[in-house]
């Protein structure tokens, strides 16, 4: 019996179809074997794919959202994977590459709201107890300093060290202007003779 799971969020609809994997001891209401999925994004083509495509989609969309929440827009998806996402003109572009040769990739522009909708649908799929399809979910991790480096503008990043160097130079210059203390003269100091009382 074919089972269906739907996740809808305003501009995004993700539908999974599959069968229960009874040999793995799953309930007859749990999707254990994915036969296909469809993803409809408002005003755009409805996409269809298999488990590998769904895995490729969440492999790029969730790390991309993870970067964005830290203010880092980093493209995701290497050349040889079926899905990629990148920032374009303040928005986002989801690229779907066909396995057929000579088929140009499909590029879907997403605004911030549409991307959030897609991320929410994927989140709900991840936590759905009725879906036990073997998928690997990227674990959100804190970003390293090197990954965050380009978030700050160059001027602000170099401001502190430059100020430090400038302050040192000014201090050195001022210190060089101070007169050096004269060495003590070799002549014996005049000793005043105490006045003789009388």
């Amino acid at each position, binding site marked *: 019996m074919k089972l269906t799971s739907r996740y809808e969020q*305003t501009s995004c609809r993700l539908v999974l179809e599959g069968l229960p994997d009874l040999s793995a001891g799953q309930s007859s209401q749990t999707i254990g074997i994915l036969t296909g999925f469809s993803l409809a994004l408002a005003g755009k083509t409805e996409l269809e794919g298999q488990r590998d495509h769904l895995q490729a989609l969440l492999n790029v969309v*969730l790390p991309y*959202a*993870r970067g*964005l*929440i*830290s*203010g880092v827009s980093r493209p995701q998806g290497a050349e040889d994977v079926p899905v990629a996402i990148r920032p374009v003109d303040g*928005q986002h572009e989801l690229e779907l590459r066909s396995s057929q040769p000579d088929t140009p990739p499909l590029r879907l522009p997403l*605004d*911030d*709201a*549409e991307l*959030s*909708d897609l*991320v*929410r649908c*994927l*989140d*709900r799929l*991840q*936590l759905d107890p009725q879906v036990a399809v073997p998928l690997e979910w990227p*674990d*959100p*991790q*804190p*970003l*390293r*300093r090197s990954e*965050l*480096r380009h*978030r*700050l503008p160059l001027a602000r990043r170099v401001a502190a060290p430059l100020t430090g160097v400038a302050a040192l130079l000014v201090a050195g210059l001022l210190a060089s202007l101070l007169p050096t203390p004269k060495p003590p003269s070799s002549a014996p100091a005049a000793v005043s003779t105490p006045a003789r009382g009388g």
Partner: protein
Amino acid sequence: MADAPVQPQRLLSRRGLERLDLLLLSAEALDLNGGEAMVWLSEEMGLTDLFPNRVELWKRRCSNPLRRTTRRDRITEAEADGLIRILNALADRLYPMLRSLLSSAEPPQLSEQRWALFRSRLQELLKERFNPRRGGVQRLLDPQEGPQLCRELIQTMALSAGPGGFTRLKASLMDAAA
């Protein structure tokens, strides 16, 4: 039986605390009853052990170094998790509003009015509760830089909402110091 290995405490950095409190403040700017909603959600989610009353909740938020009256004691990981959970639930409630702010399909004039309202409320709250001499506060109040930072706050809230939002936001608040 051997003891379970002790996990190292993962305390929020200074910047993480600043961002978390700013996001909670943004929720208050979006919802006039946001302060009450936090207390109510805290009780609803069974966080009364961590935040027995609104004063304790307020004190934990005052660990933010950008506040006018800041508290020196660092919040524990459990307290930080509690605040992140509250923010996650608030963002979920406010998601339609966050979405309408972020959507490019909204009429531009209406969208600009919504942004202007949000920014003015956030600025009022910032002037009331935050130290205006701190660079982070000045940048938010700056007419050039402020709007982009406000957009980043709203985008962060939108991606912090929903079932996966907690882990995503927590990981982000634990980022290395830039």
